[in-house]
């Protein structure tokens, strides 16, 4: 079967100035994931690799570059699913780790559960040897500015990222 991989970098009212970086990021991730598939790798490895690349890209709302909550902190969610077994793993409200998607995969592969949350997810990450980053490591200047604008202007939580509110969507 001819392998294929598709990625997205988020939907919303994305600012014009963010468009080139968004396109560049998804192209890099798609190529990397496809390369794994062409070399005989699994779909699971391919999607995890592609998402890790996007989590490292601070123009994306995931990993470093995540938007901020009302307290100015990053709280991240991730999930992964294996279509051959319906095995699935997810984390929510996880803090200070670089790649939530890899933690979600560990939940799938090393626990009897599907979803770990908050401090429990971070405790599991620590047990699995995933380094905890210094608080604030994932916060970018753009995310800080977006929250500042949000607090100043209020506005919709559904379409954030336009010229009036330079944030990003969930």
């Amino acid at each position, binding site marked *: 079967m001819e392998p294929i*991989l598709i990625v997205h970098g988020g939907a919303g009212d994305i600012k014009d100035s963010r468009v080139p970086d968004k396109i560049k990021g*998804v192209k890099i991730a798609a190529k990397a994931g496809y390369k794994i598939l062409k070399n005989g790798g699994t779909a*699971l490895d391919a*999607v995890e690799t592609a998402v890790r690349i996007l989590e490292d890209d601070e123009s994306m709302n995931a990993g470093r570059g995540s938007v901020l909550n009302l307290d100015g902190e990053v709280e991240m969610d991730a999930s992964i699913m294996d279509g051959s077994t319906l095995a699935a793993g997810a984390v929510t409200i996880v803090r200070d780790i670089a790649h939530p998607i890899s933690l979600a995969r560990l939940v799938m592969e090393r626990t009897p559960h599907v979803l770990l949350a908050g401090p429990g997810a971070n405790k599991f990450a620590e047990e699995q040897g995933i380094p905890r980053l210094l608080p604030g490591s994932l916060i970018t200047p753009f995310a800080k500015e977006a929250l500042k604008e949000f607090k100043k202007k209020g506005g919709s939580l559904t379409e954030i990222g336009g010229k009036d509110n330079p*944030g990003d969507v969930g």
Partner: protein
Amino acid sequence: TVGAVALDSQGHLAAATSTGGINGKMVGRSSDTSLIGSGTYADDEIGGVSTTGHGDSIIKVCMAYAILKNIENGSDPQKATQSVLDKMSAKLNNTAGAITISKTGEIGVGFSSKRMSWAYQKADTIYFGIEQEEVQSEKV
């Protein structure tokens, strides 16, 4: 939000999604991304999906699973994806997007928001876009 869906040479599907959520969210808010069936789903017998957009609305329609049910009921991936997005936006007045691969390797890309960045590679060509109806391609 970011996401990926893949079909490997063995015919196995996988999907993955990761997000920081919505700007200015309440502390402790979870998104659709963490919920299997809303933000992510994969089944070798049907297809795989990753979603993005207004998470609280995506949760209410179990979007990823709903798209796959459409495919299971005979829709092609593009129509299956867009119809769920359109229904969600009409009913809940919020926007979202999704990427889909069927078990036969057909692609679906849809979004009811202004923009969504996406890309996939097929053989030596990469296809990508961010605007509605936009499909660009270039040789790798």
